[in-house]
């Protein structure tokens, strides 16, 4: 009687079972919403930083404008990390011996930049320019959340393509007066009363929603 199973049949079976298990796992993760989970998007996760910088203190309590530190947000693609010089504008006089600020003083003394860990990061295949969004009136809070309530910086939005597209398909309702761009609390903004504001602004700026979803707009 000839053999039914070849010598490699066992291996094929194991490989098949392994692949099937992997498939079930991946399907389960996708079905369960893994892509949108904060484990993948990092929404609400705090990163360890060299200095426990509090946006809540500096923005919420002291009331410093975003642009005091993020100086290039209106003119360039990047909002800009502040130079140590900017930190020391106040901290040359305030909290001068605080242990938490030792890395800042060391940075100034040695000329070595502080190694901040990036929180709001886009994939490298995405072209993003801060200045155009700011000039058209997309407030900081739309993408970065209520940083005035964050003792430690965390990502506020998933930064996924569909989230970008939600706004790009219909930018009107998200537009605000450009001179109030850094305002954090928009609860007092009368959405009903300003129903025409966004569409009017979009028309004024010549924003064409049908062009706003062109692939090459962001993937250059």
């Amino acid at each position, binding site marked *: 009687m000839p053999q039914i199973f070849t010598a490699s049949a066992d291996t094929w079976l194991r490989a098949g079972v392994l692949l099937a298990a992997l498939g079930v796992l991946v399907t389960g993760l996708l079905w369960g919403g893994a892509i949108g989970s904060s484990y993948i998007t990092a929404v609400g996760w705090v990163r360890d930083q060299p200095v426990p910088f509090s946006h809540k203190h500096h923005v919420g309590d002291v009331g410093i404008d975003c642009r005091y530190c993020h*100086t290039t947000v209106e003119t360039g693609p990047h909002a800009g990390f502040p130079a140590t010089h900017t930190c020391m504008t*106040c901290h040359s*006089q305030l909290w001068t011996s605080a242990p938490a600020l030792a890395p800042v003083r060391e940075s100034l003394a040695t000329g070595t930049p502080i190694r901040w860990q990036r929180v709001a990061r886009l*994939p490298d295949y995405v072209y993003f320019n801060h200045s155009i969004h700011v000039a058209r009136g997309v407030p900081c809070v739309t993408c970065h959340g209520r940083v005035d309530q964050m003792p430690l910086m965390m990502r506020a939005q998933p930064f996924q393509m569909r989230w970008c597209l939600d706004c790009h398909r219909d930018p009107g309702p998200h537009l605000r007066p450009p001179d109030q761009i850094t305002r954090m609390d928009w609860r007092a903004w009368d959405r009903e009363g300003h129903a025409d504001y966004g569409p009017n602004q979009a028309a004024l700026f010549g924003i064409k929603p049908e062009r706003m979803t062109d692939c090459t707009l962001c993937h250059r």
Partner: protein
Amino acid sequence: MRYLLLLALCAVLIILLVGCDEMTHQPRYQAAGPGRLFPDGKAMQAPPAGAVAQDDRARAAALARRPAMSAALLARGRQRYDIYCSPCHDVAGTGHGAVPARGFPAPPSLHEPRLVQAPSRYFVEVITSGHGVMYSYADRVAPADRWAIAAYIRALQLSRDAPADALEATDRAKLDGARLDGGAS
């Protein structure tokens, strides 16, 4: 045969895992990221000594000449003042900002006679080079904006020290009316 197959499977899985990166981290330098090509390890390099930037002449020209006073200049100055100056000098220029309230040496009021009499260029120079414990703001406030802030400081000073005769007739009438009301109540 069996090991070859397992090896092939592992290779396929590794290739799939590599695909998970999806080119999100491309081998290129980011503005504020590391750059191993340079001795100090930064991608962003300071210009070498003696380098002249393309816009240096335009910046120098903007710094040398005081722009004509206009409503747009004042509006710009007000916005820049509120961002960069008000943390210490406060929005009215009295020097009682949020930062001095936390122990920073309080700046002088912009309404004191010495500063009212100072030329606008003085404020531009202080913004450019700093003064006392005030650091230079040359890296944060563009030359044209320094003049705009100086212009707005002039407006702030005038708001506290304008002669009533300089008002237009309608405004003067309002002022006199307010005085009468104040005296009557």
